[in-house]
Each structure stands twice: as C-alpha cells, then as structure tokens.
C-alpha cells in the first residue's frame, strides 16, 4: 500500500480552505455598464481590471489651473513612497507624498489608507487632500461613491468605505450620476455620497452565504417555489439592506415570471416599493406596478 499522500485529497482540503475567503472588492455593474457608454462618448480608456464601488462618475471642468505649492511637495519618509503598482499605503496624518506617474500630490489629513492603481489612486479610508496639476494626462481617483477623473483641481476626499464626502478647493467638478443627473460643484462646495444600501464586503455570516447558495441551487434545478420560499426566510432574518433589496427583487421575478403567481407578484412588488422606496430597481419596480395596474381599471379616481 502506498505511503504517499493522495494529491486529490490534499487539493480538496486546500479547496475547502478557500471557502472561507471572500472577495474584498465589490463590482458595481452599473458603473461598468455606464462607463461603456461614456468610453465611446468621451474617449476614456478604462483598464479591464478597474474596480470601483462607484455609482457616480465625475468629470473635472476646471477653468483655471489648481495651484500646487511644489516647494512643499516632497517625498515624506520612505514608508510613504509607493513601492510598486497596486501597493497599499497606510499614511499617518501630515504625511505628504508626490507621485510622478501619474502626477499627483497626496497629503493625508487624517490617517489614510490609499492604494496606488495603474492610472491613479484608490482612497479606501481616511481624509486626504489631492492636488492634480493641469497637464495633458488625466488622473483617476477611486472612492466608494465614485470615480473622479480630473486635471487641474485641488479637493479633499473623506471616505470610510461606504460613505464619503468631497470638498472642492480649486477647479470645478461636474458630478454625473449613472441615471444622467448632472450637478456642478464650485470651489468651496461639498458633496456627500451615502451608500446605505451598498453591498457589504462579505455576507453578514457564513449561514447567510450558504443559504443564498441554496437559492441559487434551487433555481438551477428549476425548483422556483423553493427558491422563492427560501428568500422569504432570508428576508425575515437579519440581512444587510442591499442584499435584502436584491433578494426581494429576485423573489418578485420568480413569482411573476417563473411561477406565474401574478396576484402574489403584484402584492410583492407593492411591498418592495414601500420597503425600498427609491432604491436600485425603481425603474423596474415602476414598470412592474404599471403591469399590475393594467389588470385593473387604468384610470384611478
């Protein structure tokens, strides 16, 4: 009998240890979809691996160059200097770093976690002042609420992973939301983004993750009634807002399109609209409620 270890068994054990890991980044598909259009319209080049938990794209419309005090810009202690692309820095308050590629001056106002990307930086947590000289090259600053592409502006970003605040010092920034809303931010103006319904970095617990996988398995096997029933259980248990909204919408889809339980679906859509008023699927919910209204008299008094 062989005394060597079985590699398939060893690899299965390794695979089981992977089950504990979760992605640390969330993909906001709305941004990916809208940037696809913006790319054609404005000629942006977006790296295939760029991830942003963004719902917003902001474009700089600076009319005068941001002033940068280059005499003060210098590399702070060596620990502040990014060693390689995608390096993550932990900067203490007062730490100032100048990057030449892309051109950017970073000054931490409070303890800061910032990650260098190919075309700029990603602010993960903290408060930072950023100076971007007016050059031909665009710089990208990623935050949880958006992506800032700009040339020639100075602004302060505060970020905690779910919410953030932007204060413009010099230059002018246009705030373009994914739904097309446009807002101009003048120097001195502050803009906040709240992601109360942002996805958590992981499911709230292991049990929830496993139960959601069961929903997916039921769907794959065509057991739509069980999938819908399981979602009801998940929604009654503690769960983060965004995941609840997604699962709730999933249930509506199952009721209406897979199980053909129209009355239940209409009741569910109305309840969803109440619970997640103005949420991520407001267009779809409006359309669903209109479909339901089509079965009753079209003119309400």
């Amino acid at each position, binding site marked *: 009998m062989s005394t*060597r*270890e*079985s*590699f*398939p068994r*060893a*690899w*299965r*054990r*390794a*695979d089981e*240890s*992977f*089950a*504990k*890991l*979760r*992605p*640390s*980044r969330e*993909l906001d*598909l*709305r941004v*990916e*979809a809208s940037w696809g259009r913006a790319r054609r319209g404005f000629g942006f080049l977006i790296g*295939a*691996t760029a*991830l942003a938990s963004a719902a917003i794209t902001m474009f700089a419309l600076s009319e005068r160059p941001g002033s940068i005090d280059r005499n003060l810009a210098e590399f702070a202690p060596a620990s502040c200097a990014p060693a390689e692309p995608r390096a993550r820095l932990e900067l203490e308050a007062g730490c100032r770093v100048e990057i030449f590629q892309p051109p950017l001056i970073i000054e931490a106002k409070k303890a800061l976690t910032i990650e260098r990307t190919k075309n700029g930086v990603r602010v993960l947590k903290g408060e930072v002042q950023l100076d971007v000289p007016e050059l031909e090259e665009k710089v990208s600053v990623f935050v949880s609420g958006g992506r800032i592409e700009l040339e020639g502006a100075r602004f302060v970003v505060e970020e905690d992973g779910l919410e953030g605040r932007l204060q413009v010092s010099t230059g002018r920034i246009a705030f373009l939301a994914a*739904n*097309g809303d446009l807002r101009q931010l003048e120097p001195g103006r502050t803009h906040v983004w709240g992601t109360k319904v942002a*996805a958590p970095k992981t*499911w709230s617990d292991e049990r929830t*993750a496993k139960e*959601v*996988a069961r*929903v*997916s398995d039921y*769907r*794959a096997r*065509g057991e739509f009634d069980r999938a819908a029933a399981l979602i009801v259980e998940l929604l009654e248990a503690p769960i983060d807002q965004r*995941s609840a909204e*997604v*699962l709730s*919408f*999933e249930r509506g*889809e199952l009721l209406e399109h897979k199980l053909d339980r129209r009355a239940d679906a209409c009741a569910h859509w109305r309840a969803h609209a109440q619970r997640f008023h103005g949420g*991520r*699927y407001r*267009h*779809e919910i*409006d*359309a669903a409620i*209109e*479909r339901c*209204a*089509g079965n009753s008299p*079209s*003119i*309400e*008094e």
Partner: protein
Amino acid sequence: MRVGPSAMTAASKPAALTDRVARVERIYVLHRDRVFRWALRYGAGDVRWAEDVAHDVFVKLLRAIDRLDDDEELARWLYRVTTNRCLTKLKRDRVRASLFALVAGFGIFEPQHVALDAATAAKDELQKTLEVVRSLPPKERIAFSMLHLDGKSQNEIAEIMGLSKGYVSKLLARATERVRAAGYEVDA
C-alpha cells in the same frame, strides 16, 4: 385622476440597459462567491488574481446575458467562462514571466501571492499543495482540477476547454506524472 401606463414608454429606453444590469447584478449576488472560489483554485489561492477573474466574468456576462435563457444554461456558462478566463490569464502570466526573465536576465519569478489567513498559511501542508498546483502548466492545472475537484468526465472537460478528448487525456497523464514526481500519489 391617474391615466394608464404611459410612463412605460418613457422608462423603456433607459430600462433596456438598467434591466440588463439589474439581471446581472442579481446573478452576481447569487454566484459571486462560487465564481471567486473556482478562480481561487486555478489561481492557487491568489486572492487578488481571483478577484480580477471574477470581475472579468461578470463584466462579460453583461454582454452575454440576453442569450442566456435559463438557470441551467447560466450555471454552465459561468463555469465555462470562468475556466477559460483563468486559462487565458494563466497563459498570459507565464508569457509575461518568461519575457521578464528574458529581458532582465533573472530567473522566472512567480506572481505575488496574497497570503491566506495567518493560521491557514502557516500550515506547511497547504503551502506544499499549492506549490504543486502552481507547478502545473495552465491547461494541465485546469483539466486536473476539473477532474479531481469538480468530478468532470474527460468528455466534459474536453467540451468545456474546447479540446479533443485525446488531448485532455494527455494533459491529465502529464499532470499526474508531475504530481507523482512531487511526492504525491494520484488516486480517484
């Protein structure tokens, strides 16, 4: 008084894109962890690498979603696309590593691996296993994983990877030889 559903027309133009995104987003919530885990296997535990793959798969799904009618088809699509994306990325990583070695005159360097949690990483056995996984060339790594972790048949592996059954058989044989040379046994 409220007149009938005239708002649907106004909503229908932006709704096409938002519908697609909303559909993919729901699929993302349900399947993200699974896709990520598949990518972790092929990437031998490299979290950052697996995140990139998962990102690419769901962005690709945005374009393909209209062609996927049912859940079974979707599950197959996710598995196939994740596998092929990993294969492409592994091959590209090796080319890049070879070019770097050629230009810099250094030895082949391994991509930087993000460590697993400290308790797991400390286990020599896991590290040794992952070293063996990393030593397998891309096609062998993927075919071997599909056979021993996912229980796929050689026919299924051939179909997913777009290869002949005979070639898959050779890949598995070579991978088995390498694993045995590393001191392991390969059983069912």
